[in-house]
């Protein structure tokens, strides 16, 4: 169980996730990091089976690194997303993985791709996933506007994930966020007792 969210803004993307990993009703890890780096300015949020998504992330990280060396430039977010899609689609019978690939590249700027269970790949104005996502579709539908600024996107990510954590038993802990831009990546976390909306 998880809540993951990514919202692009002019110049980059804000990626956010909770930190709870659960086995049934036991919290196996309350300090987990579900936002994994695929390349310099390409990240992905992982949901579903932890082992499956870690393996997928490792593969994509490896292939992207190779591609960067072969082509001599950074891969685009689109390429990363479609690589992830290929792995998720061809192995769909053996995987339980819902992934959001997001980042910044010189071609498209900030962009976000949602790759749900079956292995479809859909570019979206914002993407949300995991068991906690069901509780915040209403909030996101009413609060999201295209072209939000960096601060607005960051605040919305933190607010939405707090709301999901407040209602979903399988999400909780802290909120981790990464703000990805041309200049680099800024990591932040919101402790569990300073959430915008309480548990």
């Amino acid at each position: 169980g998880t809540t993951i969210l990514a919202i692009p803004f002019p110049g980059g993307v804000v990626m956010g996730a909770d930190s709870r990993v659960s086995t049934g009703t036991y919290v196996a890890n309350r300090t987990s990091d579900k936002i994994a780096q695929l390349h310099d300015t390409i990240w992905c949020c992982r949901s579903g089976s932890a082992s499956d998504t870690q393996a997928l992330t490792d593969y994509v990280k490896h292939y992207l690194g190779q591609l960067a060396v072969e082509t001599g430039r950074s891969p685009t977010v689109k390429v990363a997303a479609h690589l992830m899609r290929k792995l998720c689609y061809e192995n769909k019978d053996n995987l339980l993985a819902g992934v959001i690939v997001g980042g910044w590249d010189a071609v498209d700027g900030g962009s976000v791709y949602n790759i749900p269970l079956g292995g479809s790949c859909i570019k979206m104005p914002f993407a949300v996933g995991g068991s906690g996502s069901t509780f915040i579709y209403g909030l996101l539908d009413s609060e999201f506007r295209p072209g939000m600024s960096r601060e607005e996107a960051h605040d919305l990510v933190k607010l939405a994930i707090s709301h999901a954590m407040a209602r979903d038993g399988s999400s909780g802990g802290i909120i981790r966020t990464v703000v990805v831009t041309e200049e680099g990546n800024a990591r932040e976390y919101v402790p569990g007792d300073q959430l915008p909306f309480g548990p």
Partner: protein
Amino acid sequence: MSAPISLAPGGSASRVSAKSGLEAATERTRQPIVTGTSVLGIKYKDGVMLAADTLCSYGSMAKYKDARRLAKVNDATLLGAGGEYSDFQSITDLLRRNALEDKCTADSLYEEDVNEECAKEVWNYLRAVMYNRRNKMNPLWNDLVVAGFSQPAFGEASEENKPFLGLVDKIGTTYEDDVIATGFGSYLAIPILREKHRPDLEEGEARALLEDCMRVLFYRDCRALNRIQIAKVTKEDGVLISDPYEIETSWDSASFVEPKGQLEGDGGW
């Protein structure tokens, strides 16, 4: 032909089943829908103290965040429950009905003549109730914690009248102990309670111990909340249940601050 729905306890299932013997035994029990998680209890210097959070979950959803899972049965008995909330409400109604009947059929209106059931008697009664439902393959889906004293008329000084704390589960198993926990608490809180418990704990110490255990449960139980209630039964004050309040939690250990999803990291676990 009996009506499809009815007001009688058990509803349509209360009519005599056409099945008999072996076939009757294969009737399914229901599954719990709205559920509460752990309840903790300890005996301390002045009496017995219980703790529970105020969450009732609807599957994995934290639906009801102000549910009261600790109930006063009479002036001498406290009941806490995890499991199906509707069954707990039904049990509380039953026990309060019994208590009212006791009160109304007392020898006189003087307080000292009222023969209230003490906690130990309530515990035994609940064993019969739960076991009886279990035999019909239709249990009341609860783990109940009963707290109070072991003899009625606690106003009198009695050598035998000691603090009582016992558990009754959904199939009618009963036991009593100095520390009790249900659900996740039986795995995570019991070791802590056994380590720290002393029979002469002050009220403040007992409360701090229970709060520590509730904090651990909030960290590690997916169905727990950090908003809790504490209740106590003592000889002087009878049954007192606190208002719900939030407990502090800590999120500043190194594991939170250090991210692990970086390029050179291990992938994020």
